[in-house]
């Protein structure tokens, strides 16, 4: 037919992410302060209020969207870690997104997204070392089993944060909508 062939490049292969669930965190205020002071141990790590996340897939979708924007220099915010939080929200207002979905002083449950640029952190052991340095800062428990999130998710708070009270009764519909919104953040708000 014609010679146009599809090339689908979803992501630059050089960035990998880790998503962790942190529970019973007792030092959120300290973590937030370290974040504000650009502590190098928190570089390119997003700390997100876990109770406002309806499904781990939403975080992955938002993270990939951020990595893609970053690779094209089209981010809306300054860093990968703020961009992922921005992509999780339902507003164009960056400050409001960070305040609503980013770590707060009293948070006990957090989702951490660790972005690793494998051009500079190439080996698996270096990545682990970085992760452990970060985890040393956290006074709480770590889980890689994201299924635990379903018990932390607060549907009322989510419908309020996204102004979607009318969908409060249908978790599946709400989940699908929020994932779609994160995936198309730049096109719909």
């Amino acid at each position, binding site marked *: 037919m014609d010679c146009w062939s599809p090339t689908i490049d979803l992501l630059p292969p050089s960035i990998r992410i880790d998503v962790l669930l942190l529970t019973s965190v007792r030092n959120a205020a300290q973590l937030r302060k370290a974040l504000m002071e650009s502590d190098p141990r928190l570089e390119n790590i997003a700390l997100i209020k876990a109770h406002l996340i309806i499904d781990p897939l939403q975080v992955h979708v938002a993270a990939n*969207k951020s990595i893609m924007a970053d690779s094209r220099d089209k981010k809306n915010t300054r860093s990968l870690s703020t961009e992922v939080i921005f992509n999780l929200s339902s507003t164009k207002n960056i400050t409001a997104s960070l305040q609503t979905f980013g770590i707060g002083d009293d948070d006990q449950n957090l989702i951490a997204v660790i972005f690793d640029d494998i051009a500079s952190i190439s080996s698996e052991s270096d990545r682990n070392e970085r992760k452990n340095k970060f985890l040393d800062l956290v006074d709480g428990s770590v889980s890689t089993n994201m299924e635990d999130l379903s018990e932390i998710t607060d549907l009322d708070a989510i419908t309020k944060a996204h102004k979607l009270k009318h969908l409060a009764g249908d978790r599946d*519909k709400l989940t699908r*909508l929020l*994932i779609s919104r994160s995936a198309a953040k730049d*096109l719909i708000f």
Partner: protein
Amino acid sequence: MAQSDLTDLQLYKQGAEGRLFTGEYLGQKVLVKQRFPKKYRHPQLDAQLSAQRFRGEVRSLIRCQSLGIRTPTILLADLDQNIIVMEFLARAQTCRYFIQTLLAEDGSEPRLLALAQVIGKVLALIHSNHIIHGDLTTSNILVANPGAPDCELELVLIDFGLGFAEGSAEDKGVDLYVLERAFLSTHPNTEAIFDAIMKAYKSDVPQKDCSEILKKYEEIRLRGRKRTMLG
């Protein structure tokens, strides 16, 4: 460890406007829709038009979801490459197939009428919110749960490639007309079912808009989908 790549891409359908692939993304089975650049159009015009269509498609898909109507979940929408990665609905059936199967069975009328009722209601809901689908056919309406009892049938609207928000009464009339033509040519002798769709539609669309939409719809039926350009 997050797996961020799109893998296992396979051509699923080749259309005139684009291609559909199946694949896997973030552990989900997905459908990837990619539109071609149209070479016969001026590149700048083509870029502008396809960006406009792309936004229209993504926005109407998501607006439907906020109304509680099922459309495929979007996992990635990338304007630069003109691709949408969305949920693959493995269990859904096209309305076309669903209706054809029922038509071949005896005593299936109540179920067909139940389906007509749901279709009418869903269209009324999207039109009440000024969303236009643009290409309503029984292949673009899926039944999410083809095995469910009559009163629980749930639809999924797909392919909003010609869709947009903020439609006028004229656009809604065209939407209905396109459905009528597609419906009756795909499924001959089903006027009664289409009437049932219209009846459900009329009872759910806000009264003040209804008469105007129906007036436009009747006009369009007489003249065809395009406005006359004479004079």
